[in-house]
């Protein structure tokens, strides 16, 4: 799951897979802005065939948080 999520992050944010680390945080790099965040959410939902709750869309503020959130749905 983590590898698949890393690929989705890398593609949605247009950054290298190796830059997708636990500490990667929303709005701390220019590539992860609000527009990219919405694209990321859509890609995660499609990739894992899940529907994220509204609160989780806001809570998904780092890669490590994203792993935690996505695992709830699987």
């Amino acid at each position: 799951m983590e590898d698949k999520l890393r690929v989705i992050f890398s593609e949605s944010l247009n950054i290298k897979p190796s830059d997708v680390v636990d500490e990667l945080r929303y709005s701390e790099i220019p590539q992860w802005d609000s527009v990219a965040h919405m694209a990321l959410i859509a890609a995660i939902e499609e990739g894992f065939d899940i529907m994220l709750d509204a609160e989780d869309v806001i809570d998904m503020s780092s890669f490590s948080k994203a792993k935690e959130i996505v695992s709830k749905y699987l």
Partner: protein
Amino acid sequence: MSEISLDRQQSLYFWNDRLRTLGSSIALIDENEAIVLYADLDARVEEATQFLSRKGPRQVGLLFMGNTLPCIVAYLACLRAGHVPVLLPDTLPSDLVSQLLYNYQPDWVIRADQQGVVLPGSGLRYLEHIQTNCVSLAQLAPELGLLLSTSGTTGSPKLVRLSYQALQANAESITEYLCLSQSERALTMLPPSYSYGLSIINSHLNAGACLVLRNVSVLSPDFAKVILDQEVTSLSGVPYIYQMLHRTGFQKQSFPSIRSLTQAGGRMDDRLINVFAQLAVEKGWKFYVMYGQTEAAPRISFVPPARLLDKVGSIGIAIPGGKLYVDPLDEELVYEGLNVMLGYAESRADLSRTDELKGVLRTGDLARVDADGYFYVTGRKKRFVKLAGNRVGLDEVERKLQSVLHVPASVGGRDERMVIWLEGANDHLAEAAKLLLAEQYGLHHSMLRIRVVEELPVLQSGKKDYVALKKDE
């Protein structure tokens, strides 16, 4: 110099005496949550005005703006002192700043993080700019008050020349149709260098209302907290902000202080308009769908909230004081009003030009009007799309792609989606285009559709066939 004293007699402008008369009302809740009364704001603006006036009667400068008290003070002081600012986002790439410095030879730069002296009353730094090319600096047109870029992101140094009268007229008109009173509290959700963001500041100060200066993202957990804590009464957004509000469950939360929502900055899809129109009915809010252009300072039309559900997809009717019609010859939408710009500028010399449009703006949009007098935009004459609220020139992007990727390119699309065709057989082309557009224009690839084709369609004349490409959007 006589025109300066004349302007300063214009006591009814919202940046002049009007600030003074509002005394103990709250003008701003600043970025540190401090309360700023109109009397405090006026005193700060006056202090900064005195400083600027000592530098010269009428100068041009670059003012880097954010939604902060120091920036609002500097902006108002420029208007009061008769200095003409170019309002720019703090995030503007430095190569674009250099281009503006070169083209406009400004007298000063005011921004938060730079060398220079402290601008009294504001706290931003003021730095005199040494003119680098020795062109004679022509006198500024007396009515010129403000310069804005038509696009938040792209590299064009083309600016819109707005008069003092246009700013005041549009602020008054917005105050009227939004029924703004002193009890309003708007959250600043858009950059103040962006005409829609600026119009919220102007209209609320004009109405003696309050602005909550917070750069809080819709996606931040603080967003709901700020609305509740500061008892915000209105929100404003471009289409993608509404998409985010929708996706983050805004509609399921309770915000007792909210009374109205406004939307502008490009066409929002009908489904989303319906969602928020229904929500507004349920909650007893007013939801305003609006249309405008930086060239009109910026507001042109709005849909009265009571008619919204039967007029989804319409840009509405002209704002108070304005007139809209469709040119029968070419179906172009034309707007007339005091808020229309003086014209464009591309260089310092252009700033001496007076009113070239005489209150008549050909919008570049094609439109029709229904039996009730509501206007609908049906197409666009000018080659641009709006992405995340910002205007992006298609020809400019096309030229950039061709010059960097060295392949023929065609760029088309509609609001919120740019479509790019590249001629070639190389799989890496799409990736390279994606990267270039992200770096150069800050465009996220979710707003792009990139197609690599063997041959771009051309007309018999040899020109690119955009109609054929359009079918493929």
